[in-house]
């Protein structure tokens, strides 16, 4: 699945965004869904009340846990092991895949039923299982649909957001070998029946992990469909892949996460199911896994530890609220991000996990830095600041846009000398006569090709601002009152602080 995906996917964010922008349904669907989810979130947050106090509490719990991650992760591993879980540690994606495959081979597994897990997407685990002849079946309705289509999820909460029900009916009809009507109830009913059989015959159930409770070694899953419960109740073996930062100290802390996560993700008071699983089935139990593995995955996460600019990334609880709030995501959809994680969190997380500046995508530039993601984030991660840090690091390490740098240098040279600048403007005023029609430049070639595809460039005025300055300056000085001392001192203060280089977005350390 992932091989085909990589081959068919164009390289740059811009190309992928063009694809998304041209796909009318995707654009509308993304807008509709994100608006619905965002509206739901705002309503749920307002109804609940004291939202900012809850956010702050959520942030503090995450900050505290990550700051003491060695203690809590160690405690979790010890407790989970005492519960009878086989705990494993994987530093890299390759190690995590190797462990998963070894367990599947040992168990002589034919099929693995999976509930939603971003970590397994990150590891491309389905393709790896396929390579040893094990069928991996996604059981979340949306994930099942896009698995049939051989595509990647385009939204963290609603993965098949880019497909309409006719496309879905076509996919499922092919799967069923008979024609299914494009009716939601019929389609969902087919998947229920089909996957019921799969749950009952599967050798292994595979899950992600929303939270892991250090003090009791329990793992917690949030979901609406019941497939995560299926996967952790019916098969004899359970494998859970968990990012090393998923830890919270206690069940008490889970109340805060359970308050923030569903409200931020879908606007629900709580997801239909919240399950806390503490070890494999007890001796006399008649369901639940006999053998349970938890693979704790680093895969670039620990690189953020001790990095003052990016450590807070590990606070993320994967709710998707930043996607729904982001004007860029709402326009281009998830596939344009090209990584496992999309939206503002993906734009920062993907390069941060890879820590490889040379391959840093251009996605950090596809952001308006409006801060909507920070406002939406239930644990207050300053994503818009991080996007700026990313851009800075990219430029510092020599991966800026060469044309842009050259252009900027050229502009600096020309604009630095009044006579040169004046000359350049004169040249433009004369030169544009060749291309100006009806007061605008419409030519879709040369440097204006991109801009003019959708807009018209205004022509240069007959008299430039500089040429008019003498007259203007006289008029302004005659009319304008002098700046008040208070305003002036505030502005000077601002400039001084900016020069000191500290602060940025006021408040967070």
């Amino acid at each position, binding site marked *: 699945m992932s091989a085909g995906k990589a081959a068919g996917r164009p390289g740059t964010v811009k190309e992928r965004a063009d694809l998304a922008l041209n796909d009318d349904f995707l654009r509308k669907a993304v807008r509709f869904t994100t608006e619905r989810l965002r509206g739901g979130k705002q309503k749920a947050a307002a109804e609940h009340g004291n939202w900012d106090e809850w956010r702050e509490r959520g942030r503090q719990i995450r900050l505290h846990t990550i700051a003491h991650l060695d203690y809590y992760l160690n405690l979790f591993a010890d407790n989970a092991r005492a519960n009878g879980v086989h705990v494993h540690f994987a530093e890299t994606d390759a190690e995590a895949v190797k462990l998963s495959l070894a367990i599947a081979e040992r168990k002589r597994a034919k099929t693995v039923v999976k509930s939603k897990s971003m970590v397994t997407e990150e590891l491309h685990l389905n393709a790896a299982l396929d390579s040893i002849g094990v069928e991996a079946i996604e059981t979340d309705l949306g994930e099942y649909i896009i698995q049939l289509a051989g595509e990647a999820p385009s939204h963290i909460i609603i993965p098949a957001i880019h497909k309409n029900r006719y496309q879905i009916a076509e996919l499922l009809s092919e799967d069923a070998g008979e024609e299914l009507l494009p009716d939601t109830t019929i389609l969902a009913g087919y998947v229920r029946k089909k996957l019921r059989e799969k749950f009952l015959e599967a050798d292994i159930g595979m899950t992600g992990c929303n939270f892991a409770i250090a003090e009791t070694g329990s793992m917690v899953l949030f979901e609406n469909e019941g497939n995560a419960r299926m996967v952790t109740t019916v098969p004899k073996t359970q494998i859970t892949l968990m990012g090393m930062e998923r830890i919270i100290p206690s069940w*008490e802390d889970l109340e805060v996460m359970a308050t923030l996560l569903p409200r931020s993700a879908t606007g629900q008071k709580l997801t*239909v199911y919240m399950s806390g699983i503490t070890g494999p089935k007890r001796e006399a139990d008649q369901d639940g896994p006999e053998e349970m593995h938890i693979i704790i995955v680093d895969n670039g996460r620990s690189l953020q530890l001790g990095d003052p600019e990016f450590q807070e990334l590990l606070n993320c609880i994967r709710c998707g609220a930043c996607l729904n709030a982001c004007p860029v995501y709402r326009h281009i959809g998830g596939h344009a991000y090209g990584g496992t994680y999309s939206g503002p969190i993906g734009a920062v997380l993907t390069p941060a996990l890879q820590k490889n500046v040379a391959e840093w995508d251009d996605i950090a530039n596809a952001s308006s830095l409006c801060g909507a993601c920070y406002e939406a984030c239930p644990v207050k991660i300053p994503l818009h600041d991080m996007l700026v840090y990313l851009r800075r690091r990219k430029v510092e390490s020599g991966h800026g846009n060469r044309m842009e740098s050259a252009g900027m240098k050229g502009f600096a040279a020309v604009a630095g000398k009044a006579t040169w600048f004046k000359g350049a403007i004169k040249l433009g005023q004369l030169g544009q006569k060749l291309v100006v029609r009806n007061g605008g430049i419409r030519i879709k070639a040369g440097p204006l090709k991109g801009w003019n595809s959708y807009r018209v460039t205004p022509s240069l005025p007959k008299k430039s601002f500089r040429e008019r300055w003498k007259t203007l300056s006289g008029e302004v000085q005659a009319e304008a009152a002098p700046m008040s001392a208070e305003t002036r001192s505030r502005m000077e203060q601002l400039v001084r602080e900016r020069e000191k280089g500290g602060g940025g977005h006021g408040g967070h350390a």
Partner: protein
Amino acid sequence: MADTHKEWLEQLEAQSKAKQESFMTGIAKKLGRSRVTEPPAHPFRGAPDFWRTFQWPLEERIERFTEHFQAAGGNVERLNNLADVKSFVVKLAGEMDARYIVRQQESELDCLGLEEALPEAHLSVWNSDPSENWKVRAAEADIGIVMADYAAAYTGSITVLSAAHKGRSVSLLPTVLIAVIPLERLKTRLGEILIQFDDRGREELPAGIHFISGPSRSADIENDLTIGVHGPGIVYALLVG
């Protein structure tokens, strides 16, 4: 095979324990300090202070639970006693023409005498015979009947804990779920339930703790809400007392 598999697992465990040390040391190093081995002070544990004392009186808990559970697509009935529960279940099973019913092995449910009242249906009692394949019994059932261990009014949630006589499948695999909630188990907040698991401690926790807040649902196809995707599509919460 059993022995070699066990040996293999032991091998993995030895590797895992060695790796655990280097993993934790690595984390501490990146955080720029030595390993933390004593419990750190956690001043922000749990919900904010204003929330911890928040309580609704019983009637309001009932009202709010009903409102929230119904909003999520569930059904709520207020019943006086177990005799009313019996007649409700018998009537519902009759209306739905339920052929297969599975219930937990709990004294309150034993008291209902459903076996005699529903002679037409195949009614099985979870783990009453350990040699039976109980997952299959639950999967074929039209109705599953459970006692709720707790419920929370603020989120409209039912909590069920697993045990030898209380299957996780009973609240998951049947088409219809009926949960009986004695009123004294109905709390205001989620936190009142969660904190009990901290108090019990690791060794006293069951393998499965499940919060259920309505019928199974999905909005994955064109944002169109679908009920009963994998779990029960019809859920009844019976408030008793």
